């Protein structure tokens, strides 16, 4: 309130009154000289004072004289004019006495210059100041429409006075004061109009009447409009003291940006004009006060503040209550104003009430004040309640920059959230304030809630308005926290500011700060499974909503079924849809599933309770000697909904980026149970990709693999353990194995334990051709993979030279680099086809053979060790037409040899030894008769036709098995032959020895 403005320094009132009495005095002097003398005397008297004057004496009598058209001062701009003036005289000893002055239409012009009244030329008539206290002259006066135009530094004031009576005793009249525009400092008053009854008495002057002010406005501070009121003023006789009461009603008003209607002030004031002191006291009130509409609208923008946090539900009702309350408030208070050596203003017994029934009161104390000496003071009991605003009660006593306040705040609850504040302590020291309390919060979090989230709060408010919250570490604790199926046990964590304070609010409103929890440790459960989270440092910046967690270690479950997740860095930001961010350096393992996940990086998002991840990942075999080489996936998509993980991704071979398998994983965290489905649409081996890039198991076992393998696998795990099955198949695979090249391998292998590489019995594989030195085609092997990389051959079958070759059951240990022993059983071998197939040039024979061929395969290839073949019943024929290696066989040798050209045998056994890829030594034992005569001179006396003679043969045959390849490539390269058969080709190598060694 700038009531102080209406108390003008007392000296002015004194000057004003003197100015009014002056015309009476001047006219009195004029009358005394009478007409010509008068005119002459007056002219001379005025001339003496250098005061030009013009007037017309209309009547001159002993008791009354009347002047008309009076003009004093510069004729062009007279200082005083009057229509008429009459003087009444009383004759006494001292000669004529002016007892009454009557005037009409007086016009007087004056200026107020630094507090002194200046009437232009009339000043020369003023009696010299006598030092005696001012007193009204004892003179009867009657004024009709006397006007004084006063120029003041604040603006032009027009005064009009009507009335009559003895100035010193009983003058009655009406005073009209009109100031179109007054401005002082940065305040402007427009249309000031006072019409007061004037009454003088021995005790002084009394003014009483209505006040009317168009508007009073001080730019920047506020103002009042259409002010109407009444003022009663009593001036002491010597104009030393003044007092009175005033009641004002402003139709509308504004303080700063708060507008209100019906501003009302009713109070009394008193002033000691001589001492220059004054005081004002009264009741002030207003109705329908409202904060500016745009401020209230912008206030509503905060309805969505802190969305997603446990305190979120409290915000909208609070904001609505504030906006509602600030829209329509009636207020009243007791105003006290003192002005003297110091100026101080107090508002006591303040009561504000909004249309929404919110009440704020400050009672029994000195209230809120400002003193030019002591600055801001506040003292009293404060209460806030109603209208949806928090209930606050307490006392505060702040003065001279010191003092304290104690408040209690009732818990605030709305929409499932509840905030309880401990009693608030406010301490003021040296112009800055410290506010201490502690907050305990229950509230929703995602699809869960937090209970008993508590933290002590200490805010420091600087003189410039800057606020710093928690400048030191404070314990953050909670009783329970449940979200996304996770339930955390009570925890107590040190929350420390990263910079100057946890939260800083700058004087201009900029919000900053940041906090960190060094060494975060949380424990809890997901469903039944125990959960621990350890995080080296959890930090967040207020400026950038979100957090950065370094080195996070999450363990879920117990014993060997614990699932492990370690993340080097996890960052997250809150956005409209929830929380999202990046993770880097993630590694882990899901329960007992023997898959090691590592080098994980990508993006994550938590939308209320659903977690989703996308990114890259490396998958490796957890086994000591891994069954497969690490694979990568750069399109991992994982979601955690209701405690169930669902993940998909395409696994690729790192160097060649060949797609190996599409993986789909489902895992139930609570039950620690899940399934992984592997789909291998097709891996094509060839020049770019060989099996050893995928697994070490085949390295040194097979090479040069060409062809496509397809299949699918499934791994199931629960707290009982891990089981896995799978099936893989190929239509045609070529490869080179230790025992020689294999063409056209086809078949399906079904694993009973995929990870253990075990199969049920009865697996079948077809081999279009195997060439351990001898090409055998259309093989079929039944086998079973046993634990520990062992292969049980259940049997194998090859059609062989008209009969069949059977592989006897055996078990081979691939883990050990030992010779493989395999026994083949021969059934129905047709000698003729056998000889023809192996191109023994100079032998022919028939007969069906059975037998066994024990073989050994090692580094240097396959060999037969004492194989035995026997001819079946019915024997067969044999003919050898080759030359003889040692010529001196003797007669019997030659005869036997002749017989061999065509023999019929009934039993024959062949013993076989030797290398499949080199030379087979076969020892043939048989008895038979010759079917063609034996030539020879020595045996005279025998019939020419020496046939049917019984023979027993023991023949050793050393024969190489040509490496025959029955595929299309079985052609002789003519160029190679020609080059080798060049005539005159010397055995010496063309290149000399020395050049040869240039490597």
């Amino acid at each position, binding site marked *: 309130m700038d009531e102080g403005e209406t108390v003008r320094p007392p000296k002015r009132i004194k000057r004003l009154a003197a100015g009014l009495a002056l015309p009476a005095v001047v006219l009195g002097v004029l009358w005394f000289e009478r007409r010509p003398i008068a005119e002459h005397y007056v002219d001379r008297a005025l001339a003496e004072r250098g005061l030009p004057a013009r007037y017309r004496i209309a009547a001159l009598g002993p008791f009354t004289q009347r002047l008309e058209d009076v003009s004093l001062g510069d004729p062009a701009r007279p200082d005083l004019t009057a229509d008429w003036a009459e003087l009444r005289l009383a004759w006494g000893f001292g000669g004529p006495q002016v007892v009454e002055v009557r005037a009409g239409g007086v016009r007087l012009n004056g200026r107020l210059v630094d507090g002194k009244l200046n009437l232009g030329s009339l000043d020369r008539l003023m009696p010299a100041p006598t030092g005696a206290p001012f007193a009204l002259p004892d003179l009867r006066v009657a004024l009709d429409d006397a006007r004084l135009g006063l120029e003041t530094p604040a603006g032009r004031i027009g005064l009009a006075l009507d009335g009559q009576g003895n100035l010193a005793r009983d003058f009655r009249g009406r005073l009209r004061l009109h100031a179109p525009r007054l401005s002082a400092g940065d305040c402007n008053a427009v249309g000031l109009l006072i019409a007061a009854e004037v009454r003088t008495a021995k005790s002084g002057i009394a003014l009483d009447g209505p006040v009317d002010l168009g508007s009073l406005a001080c730019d920047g501070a506020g103002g009042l409009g259409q002010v109407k009121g009444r003022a009663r003023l009593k001036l002491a006789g010597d104009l030393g003291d003044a007092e009175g009461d005033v009641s004002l009603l402003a139709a509308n008003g504004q303080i700063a940006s708060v507008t209100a209607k019906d501003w009302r002030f009713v109070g009394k004031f008193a002033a000691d004009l001589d001492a220059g002191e004054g005081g004002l006291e009264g009741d002030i009130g207003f109705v329908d006060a409202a904060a500016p509409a745009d401020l209230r609208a912008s206030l509503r923008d905060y309805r969505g503040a802190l969305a997603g946090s446990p305190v979120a539900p409290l915000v909208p009702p609070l904001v609505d209550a504030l906006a509602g309350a600030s829209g329509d408030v009636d207020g009243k208070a007791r105003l006290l104003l003192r002005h003297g050596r110091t100026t101080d203003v107090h508002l006591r017994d303040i009561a504000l009430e909004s249309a929404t029934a919110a009440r704020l009161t400050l009672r029994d104390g000195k209230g809120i004040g400002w003193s030019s000496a002591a600055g801001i003071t506040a003292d009293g009991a404060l209460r806030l309640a109603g209208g949806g605003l928090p209930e606050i009660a307490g006392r505060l006593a702040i003065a001279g920059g010191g003092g304290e306040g104690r408040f209690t705040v009732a818990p605030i609850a709305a929409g499932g959230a509840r905030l309880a504040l401990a009693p608030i302590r406010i301490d003021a020291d040296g112009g800055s304030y410290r506010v201490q309390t502690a907050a305990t919060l229950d509230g929703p979090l995602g699809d869960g809630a937090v209970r008993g989230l508590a933290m002590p709060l200490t805010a420091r408010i600087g003189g410039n308005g800057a606020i710093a919250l928690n400048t030191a570490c404070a314990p953050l604790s909670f009783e329970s926290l449940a979200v996304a199926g996770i339930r955390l046990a009570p925890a107590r964590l040190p929350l420390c500011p990263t910079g100057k304070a946890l939260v800083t609010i700058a004087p201009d409103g900029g919000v900053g700060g940041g906090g960190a929890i060094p060494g975060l440790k949380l424990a809890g459960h997901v469903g039944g499974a125990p959960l621990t989270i350890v995080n080296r440092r959890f930090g967040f910046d207020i400026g950038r909503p979100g957090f950065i967690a370094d080195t996070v270690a999450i363990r879920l479950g117990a014993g060997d079924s614990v699932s492990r997740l370690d993340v080097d860095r996890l960052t997250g930001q809150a956005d409209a849809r929830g929380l999202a961010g990046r993770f880097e350096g993630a590694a882990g393992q899901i329960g007992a599933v023997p898959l090691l996940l590592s080098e994980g990086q990508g993006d994550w998002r938590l939308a209320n309770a659903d977690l989703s991840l996308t990114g890259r990942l490396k998958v490796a075999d957890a086994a000591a000697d891994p069954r497969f080489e690490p694979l990568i996936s750069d399109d991992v998509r994982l979601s955690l909904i209701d405690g169930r993980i669902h993940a998909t991704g395409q696994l690729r071979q790192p160097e060649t980026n060949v797609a190996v398998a599409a993986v789909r994983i489902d895992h139930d965290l609570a039950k620690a149970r899940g399934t992984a489905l592997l789909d291998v649409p097709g891996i094509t081996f060839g020049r770019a990709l060989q099996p*050893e890039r995928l697994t*070490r198991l085949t*390295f*040194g*076992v*097979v*090479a*040069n693999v060409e062809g496509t393998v397809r299949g699918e696998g499934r791994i199931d795990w629960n707290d009982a353990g891990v089981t896995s099955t799978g099936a893989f198949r190929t239509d045609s695979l070529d490869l*080179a*194995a*230790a025992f*020689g*090249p294999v063409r056209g391998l086809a078949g399906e292998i079904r694993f009973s334990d995929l990870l253990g590489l075990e199969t049920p019995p009865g697996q079948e594989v077809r081999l279009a051709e195997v*060439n351990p*030195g001898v090409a055998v085609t259309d093989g079929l092997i039944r086998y079973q993979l046993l634990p520990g990389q062992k292969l049980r051959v259940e049997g194998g079958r090859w059609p062989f030279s008209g009969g069949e070759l059977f592989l006897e059951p055996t078990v081979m240990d691939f883990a050990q*680099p030992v010779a493989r022993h395999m026994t083949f059983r021969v059934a129905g071998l047709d000698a003729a086809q056998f000889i023809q197939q192996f191109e023994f040039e100079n032998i022919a024979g028939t007969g069906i053979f059975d037998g066994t061929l024990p073989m050994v395969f090692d*580094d*240097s*290839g396959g060999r037969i060790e004492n194989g035995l073949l026997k001819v079946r019943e019915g024997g067969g024929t044999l003919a050898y037409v080759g030359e003889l290696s040692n010529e001196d066989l003797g007669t019997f040798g030659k005869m036997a040899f002749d017989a061999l050209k065509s023999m019929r045998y009934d039993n024959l056994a062949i013993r076989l030894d030797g*290398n499949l*890829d*080199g*030379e087979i030594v076969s020892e043939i034992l048989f008895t038979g008769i010759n079917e063609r005569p034996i030539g020879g001179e020595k045996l005279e006396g025998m019939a020419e036709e020496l046939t049917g003679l019984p023979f027993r043969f023991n023949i050793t045959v050393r024969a*190489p*098995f*040509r*490496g*025959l*390849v029955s595929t299309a*490539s*079985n052609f*002789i*390269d003519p160029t*190679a032959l020609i080059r*080798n058969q060049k005539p005159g080709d010397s*055995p010496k190598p063309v290149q000399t*020895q020395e050049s*040869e*060694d240039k*490597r």
Partner: protein
Amino acid sequence: QDAALSAAIASGQVGEQADGYMGIAKPVGGDIRSAVEALNIKRRAAYTDQAAKHGVALREWAATIGCQTLRNRVKPGQAYLLPDGVWRVKDASPIALPGNCG
């Protein structure tokens, strides 16, 4: 594995054999053994084709290769195996080739 195998060859742990295959002269780790086996498997597959193309037995072709490797691909300090089954280390002098090398 190539680097490890080359190192094993250079240090005489593994070396060429007269029969055309690579052999293990001194005890070596599993990886080197697998590498030698894998190499021999590839040699055998290639030899099988060559033997058929030249109409000779696989072992004959392999032995022919063996003569060449002993004749000019064994460097001093590297190991080699002759048909007598004795591993030797090549010095400056040329290797006494088996009879059938001619």
